[in-house]
């Protein structure tokens, strides 16, 4: 007799605002206070442009986290995409049209491989994607011989670098912000409005029950990893576009993406997760970094703050969960 119907449900089900939005709002107010220029389009559009890769990455990561796993390989995947694009385009502007699909394919392929390793070799995703992280880094270097051989042509860099000018109201919109909106919209729709999303939740919540109910657990899990891989490839294309070729573009992005998803209330080990909230987490994280920059605080302080926020966010979530009895 451990099943306890909860009579206070009605109260608890009142629409609850995710704390990440409050955090984000507070941070933005603080940024505007520090730097009134932020309310100008240049201010907030630059902010969104900068946050776009991380936000997209978080939107992909939240699939894997909700399905009960981790994806540590996205950072190296970004590096691979940037280095690989420079190798393939090889200074040829017309190559972009096939290189970008190839990169998206690599993202999906890496995700599929991660998923297959987890599903069929039964290696926990933490280890599987850690191995993938190391491997992809090596592949990126091996492919390029340690330093990329080509420039990224402007056609490739279009997505990460260009703006649409003369837009009414906001003056200009960076292409990457449009990519952000489209990708996040798509990911959010898949997660919250389709069978796929329900199944991602179900297999993270209770894989045995999901399997016995007929859910194609492996297929769903592989798909979740593929979406994460896809988000890594898109983030890589944006980052390469924004900043050009380098060999360590992706370093550290995997942990930031997980942090963002966790800030957005995604439950580690699965069962709960929201794409918009994860994107909110990514924006909040970027806002924190921006704020610390404005305050003139050095890198070490940023690390400490990131660490504290990470622990506090999860501790708070656990506390709330205990209080509401769920």
């Amino acid at each position, binding site marked *: *007799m*451990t*099943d*306890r*119907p*909860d*009579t*206070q*449900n*009605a109260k608890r*089900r009142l629409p609850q605002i995710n704390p990440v939005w409050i955090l984000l709002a507070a941070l933005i107010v603080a940024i505007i206070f520090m730097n009134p220029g932020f309310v100008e389009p240049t201010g907030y559009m630059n902010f969104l442009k900068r946050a776009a890769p991380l936000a997209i990455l978080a939107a992909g990561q939240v699939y894997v986290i909700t399905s009960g796993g981790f994806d540590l390989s996205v950072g190296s995947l970004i590096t691979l995409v940037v280095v690989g694009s420079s190798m393939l385009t090889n200074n040829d502007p017309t190559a972009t049209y096939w290189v970008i699909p190839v990169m998206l394919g690599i993202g999906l392929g890496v995700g599929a491989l991660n998923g297959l390793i987890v599903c069929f070799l039964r290696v926990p995703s933490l280890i599987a994607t850690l191995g993938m992280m190391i491997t992809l880094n090596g592949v990126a270097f091996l492919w390029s011989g340690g330093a990329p051989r080509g420039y990224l042509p402007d056609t490739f860099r279009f997505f990460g670098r260009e703006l649409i000018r003369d837009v009414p109201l906001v003056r200009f919109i960076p292409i990457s912000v449009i990519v952000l909106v489209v990708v996040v919209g798509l990911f959010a*729709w*898949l997660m919250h*409005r*389709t*069978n*796929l999303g*329900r*199944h991602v*939740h*179900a297999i993270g*919540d*209770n894989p*045995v*029950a*999901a*399997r*016995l*109910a*007929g*859910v*194609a657990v492996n*297929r*769903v899990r592989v*798909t979740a990893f593929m979406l994460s891989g896809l988000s890594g490839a898109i983030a890589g294309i944006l980052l390469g576009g924004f900043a050009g070729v380098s060999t360590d573009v992706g370093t550290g992005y995997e942990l930031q993406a997980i942090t963002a998803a966790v800030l957005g209330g995604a*439950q580690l080990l699965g*069962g*709960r997760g929201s794409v918009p909230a994860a994107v909110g987490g990514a924006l909040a994280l970027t806002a924190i970094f921006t704020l610390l920059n404005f305050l003139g605080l050095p890198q070490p302080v940023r690390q400490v703050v990131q660490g504290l926020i990470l622990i506090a966010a999860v501790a708070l979530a656990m506390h709330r969960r205990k209080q509401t009895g*769920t």
Partner: protein
Amino acid sequence: MTDPVIEMRGITKTFPGVRALSDVSFDVRPGEVNALVGENGAGKSTLIKILSGVYHADSGAVHVGGEAVHFAHPVESLRAGIAVIYQEFSLLPERTVAQNLFLGREPRTRFGLIDGAKMRAETKEVLALFAAAGRIDPDRTVGELDVATQQVVEIAKAVSTGARVVVMDEPTAALNEAECEELFTTVDTLRDRGVAIIYITHRMREITRLADRVTVLKDGEVAARFDAVPAPDAIVRAMVGRDIEDFYAPPATPEEIGETVLTVRGAGNTVLHDIDLDVRAGEIVGLAGIQGAGRVALAMALFGETPFDHGEVTLNGAAVSFRNPRAAITGGVGLLPGDRKSEGLVLMQSVRDNGMLTSRAFAPLWASDRRNANADTGRMDDLLDHMEIRAASYDQDIRALSGGNQQKAIVARWLSMRPKLLIFIEPTRGIDVNSKAGIYHLMRDLAREGAGILMISSDLPEVIGAADRVLVMQEGRITAEFGHGASEQDIMHAATGEGEVAA
């Protein structure tokens, strides 16, 4: 007569929405066996959990050795000399017998290290009380032992704490006849040593064989108290307290039984042997047997989770061989798992999502809520309404619902799939009495609509009352078959291979 070592008075316990116990009084004296009987959901487990400090009573008092106690934690009751042997084993499969026996209170040498030799010796000593002693090597890891031997280790663990009170919760569920006999001898030994024993069971034979007194719980209240073991009929009356015919749905009439849905011939795998089985449309086939007899293994083989590796299975006239649950579901088999929490529900998701889990699983992954071939949310809501599931909203997490309502949501999962064969495993476990009848009638309705139903249950009255036909399994084989109205005695006899059971 000695004073009671345990005395519980006026215990009331309410879970949100359910009154589990109301004003229950219960006692047990040193050197006696007080049998605590009642149907599933009558409140036996709750009472024991209050005694051991897992739950706290809303009102009422617990006295141990004459002193009022308030256990905040199971450890405190253990220290007070109360050892509970739960149905779910609390053994660590990776550790040895000796390590499990002395978990948390290992003997130490004067250097503070664990005294392995002493631990082993004492393990042997404790095990010597049991007939199984010879079979058990203290250094074997528990995971390597069979279920019956694990049960012995579990009991030995309680005994080795030097408990004054030992609570056994249906200890024979997993034992065969010879092992039962061993257990009874053990209980006798304990009683002779002045240990007070609370023995939870619903098998009449065990009551007659062991009990000094009997306390009957029904719907959270004490229905009867006997200072000597009465005639079995009196106990059953007190336990059920109503007309069985009303409680269970009426059996199938011959007209309602149709074509054979499922035929299994000579099938088996590592656990199952020579399985021959027929299930016809419109009938409910009960599958009885002790724990470990292979009933769940059979269900999982039919469902493709642990497939047969030889033999023939025919479903609706076509030969099939399901390699996984998805294939089985596509072929028209449905299954309600026995452990709702760990195998049935996705607890953090909504009631509706739980109900739609299977239908969505067979709709395209990319289909949205609005354009779902066979997973229309509106239809699911109608279905849930029809089943009278009580929930504040179908959007709320299913974990907040009562067991009965949770079970209905799982049934709803299968209704929209219209399976030809539906397997229920322990369909009413942990469900209050009132909801049980609902589940039985639901099963019958499904059968009337043309499904063949296979029901696995450890609750013998349930198997007898709800099924049209009862098959009995033992050691991975189907060993007997009974028509509707078989006695508990017959079934028990077949399930354990010998002995006799009163009912």
